[in-house]
């Protein structure tokens, strides 16, 4: 079987340029809230970080391992619900509540993995969806703990106090910004490590050909399970951060199928099985859905003279397009699958490689 893409099979590790660019980007992002005080901009960045964390986490098992879980909402929900239930009903501070949340995600991933990884291809996808739906139904029906369909509305996140002095106050978005940034950087670093590790190589071998990998003595289920557990760990962490940041969760927004689909899309659109694919995907998705929500696209059409603001079409777009971000996700995934199966980053890399190859051929002549 020929290698599917060159992007996924080239030498591991990052180029010097990527490392410098990454460090520069992290430094700039760390300074960002010092210069930009606009809460909307900070909010957008937190949303972006959350998408990066989930995309990178899914990428470990889905991108490198080729195990397309469309049920990661289960781990996202476990993170969000555990922390928020413990905080709201038992008064457990979130940084303590995070520990059982992450432990629970690890345990559930181990159990779910050992059941569903015996299945392959579409059967695995179906099983992963069924598992997430089971968790959603539990969240919906276990009313005494989760408050059912009404969801949980946080009355506030307590400040971190050490020795009587307040260290972090969660009344602004900035602490969430730094937590999101730190976790996003951590998941990128974990992906870099994963890509070059024995575990990462095993997973890629499994992705390319399960039976060949098995015949070489790689225990399939074991390594898939480890990757899924790491993936679930960070997804649950993102879920906890999301719950605390937004302050409200219900079964649909924390464990719904839409969450699973968005997580997969983030990785697919950017380019699966690459370190920065999910980052690119997250940037595209967050920018697009915010453009829709804020009616920027309609405004653009109006400004461009394509649609009159007072015409019936203009009014219709203003009223409806802001709710239509899932529609755009649908079109995005269809376009990416049909025309850019390696994702946006893959398409850009391929184009760059073709240009270099042409230039090299021209130089040789």
């Amino acid at each position, binding site marked *: 079987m020929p290698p599917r893409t060159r992007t996924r099979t080239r030498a591991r590790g990052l180029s010097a340029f990527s490392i410098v660019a990454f460090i520069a980007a992290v430094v700039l992002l760390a300074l960002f809230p010092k210069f930009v005080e606009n809460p909307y901009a900070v909010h957008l960045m937190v949303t972006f970080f959350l998408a990066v964390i989930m995309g990178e986490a899914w990428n470990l098992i889905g991108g490198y391992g*080729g195990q*397309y879980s*469309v049920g990661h909402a289960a781990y996202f929900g476990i993170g969000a619900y555990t922390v928020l239930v413990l905080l709201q009903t038992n008064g457990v501070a979130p940084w303590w509540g995070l520990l059982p949340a992450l432990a629970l995600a690890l345990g559930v991933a181990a159990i779910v993995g050992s*059941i*569903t990884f*015996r*299945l*392959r*291809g*579409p*059967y695995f*996808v*179906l*099983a992963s*969806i*069924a*598992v997430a*739906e*089971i968790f959603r*139904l*539990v969240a*919906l*029906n276990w009313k005494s703990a989760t408050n059912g369909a009404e969801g949980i509305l946080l009355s506030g996140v307590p400040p971190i106090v050490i020795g009587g002095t307040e260290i972090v106050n969660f009344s602004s978005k900035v602490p969430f910004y730094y937590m999101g940034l730190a976790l996003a950087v951590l998941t990128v670093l974990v992906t870099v490590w994963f890509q070059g590790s024995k575990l990462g190589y095993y997973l890629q071998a499994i992705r390319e050909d399960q039976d060949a990998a098995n015949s070489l003595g790689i225990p399939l289920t074991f390594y898939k399970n480890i990757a899924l557990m790491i993936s679930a760990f960070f997804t649950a962490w993102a879920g906890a951060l999301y719950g605390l940041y937004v302050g409200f969760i219900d079964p649909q927004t924390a464990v719904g*199928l839409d969450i699973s*689909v968005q997580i*997969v899309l983030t990785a*697919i659109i950017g380019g699966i099985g690459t370190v920065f694919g999910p980052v690119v995907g997250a940037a595209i998705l967050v920018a697009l859905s915010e453009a829709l929500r804020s009616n920027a696209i309609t405004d653009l059409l109006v400004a461009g003279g394509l649609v009159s603001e007072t015409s019936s079409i203009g009014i219709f777009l203003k009223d*409806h*397009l802001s*709710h*239509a971000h*899932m*529609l755009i*996700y*649908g*079109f*995005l*995934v*269809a376009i990416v*699958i*049909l025309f850019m*199966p390696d994702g946006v980053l893959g398409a850009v890399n391929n184009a760059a490689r073709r240009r270099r190859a042409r230039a090299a051929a021209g130089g040789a002549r």
Partner: protein
Amino acid sequence: MTIFLQSLLSGILIGGAYALIGVGLTIIFGVMRIINFAHGDLVMLGMYASYFLFTLGNVDPFVSIVFVFPLLFLFGAILQKTVINRVLNALPQNQILLTIGIGLILSNTMMLLFTSDYRIISTSYSSGSFRLGEISVSTPLLLSFGITGLVTAILYWFLLKTDTGQAIRATAQDRDAAQLMGVNVKRMSVLATGLGAGLAAVAGALISPTYYIFPQVGQPFTLKAFVIVVLGGMGSVMGATVGGIIIGATESLAGAYISSGLKDLVVYVLFLLILLFKPAGLFGKSRV
């Protein structure tokens, strides 16, 4: 005992419509080896088509199927020719993601056009029922079950007795061999998708008098259709028919004896158990 018989009967009646949805999914899978994640959204389109025929044209939902079927058949055929055909040889994961994308486009387009308001079709018989001894039988469900039986009979005749039907079955059995025997497999793929979409829509139209109609109504049907098809055996029409009835009955009994909120949960757990212990289903060959 009355409760048992009562829920068994209503389960079987609703299972008829489930069977049609499952049969559509299994035909598409059989011919193209693609799992259609937009299948429930095709059911949703059938419900809307029936709704608008009823409110605008005063067409009875049960009569509307003669319009809904060709309409959605055409839609499915066009969808296959323009989009799905391009991923026939792609990775199964990419095929799944594409159909998930199609499903998102369908449900959100409907939301954009018609808002997410719940709609109902109130016919003279919508809430009608009659008693059979201790058991009450819902008139619309019984009618829809009867029509489901008729549609299934026509479908079996088509698949078993006509040349086109046999060509579809041959393609499902072995695509390459069918092609060597002179079957136009590309045409069969278009036909199968049209047929699958049409059947899903007919099921949607048949249940439209008893369900709320809204853009997101399809999603649970997609999942249920998978359970049915896996239970019956992927690609087996007979299996999907039986599977639909079994799932309908299971759901209804779980609703009566456990809790109505948890009936779907029972179905998903059953699904996982089948995948693990009898992945070939009741009537299929294992492809796991």
